[in-house]
């Protein structure tokens, strides 16, 4: 069971409550929540927020492929995953991404969650523009997308 979405933060909010409701399952004995937030520093600069950009259609496609890859590579039992990523301006401390997973056993949820976030970093077309104290902003360099 899988849910994924790009959340335009000007219109909606990423919340753990929605993730909790989605991954609830009596077949699963373990669940795990990964929450990415905007921190206050990067490369010796004071960060006040991050604007996330996304190619929405490709992001959703990428999330689905990552979920399917995880199932086949990790041989998960009763996998459930909820993935939402922010698009737009997220202030300091705000949530940029939630990955909530559930499986039959605990070892699998750690692997499952880690697999998803690491694959997102390599394969999902999302970009960050950091906002610093003062008016300065900078698009972070990133890495070439992997197929």
């Amino acid at each position, binding site marked *: 069971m899988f849910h994924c979405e790009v959340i335009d933060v000007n219109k909606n909010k990423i919340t753990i409550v929605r993730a909790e409701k989605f991954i609830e399952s009596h077949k699963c004995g373990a669940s795990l929540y990964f929450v990415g937030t905007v921190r206050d520093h990067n490369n010796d600069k004071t960060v006040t927020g991050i604007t996330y950009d*996304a*190619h929405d259609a490709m992001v959703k496609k990428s999330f689905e492929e990552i979920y399917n890859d995880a199932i086949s590579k990790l041989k998960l039992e009763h996998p459930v995953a909820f993935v939402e990523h922010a698009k737009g301006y997220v202030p300091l401390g705000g949530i*940029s*991404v939630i990955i909530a997973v559930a499986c039959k056993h605990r070892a699998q949820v750690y692997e499952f969650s880690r697999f998803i976030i690491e694959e*997102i970093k390599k394969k999902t*077309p*999302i*970009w960050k523009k950091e906002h610093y104290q003062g008016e300065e902003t900078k698009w972070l*360099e*990133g890495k070439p997308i992997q197929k």
Partner: protein
Amino acid sequence: MKIKLELFGVCREFSDNDFLNFDFDEDIEIKDLRKEVEKFVSKQFPENKNFLEMVKKSAFSSEANEIIGDDFKLNKNQTVSIIPPIGGG
């Protein structure tokens, strides 16, 4: 042939719109489109070497939302996206 290039990430800085339009007299491949984008950036932003570098490092994607290689042929009016280096999460 008209190619609309959708802009993302740092490439959004190339235009006040979210896209660039290119006209070609004949069929082309993605590598030809990349050269045109490089020319555009070199002309519009001669001081900004980072923009040119980003175009060189970028991938492109089709209307079907597939990453397409430098040899991918463009032979009709269509929209293509430029995918600069990524860094979400």
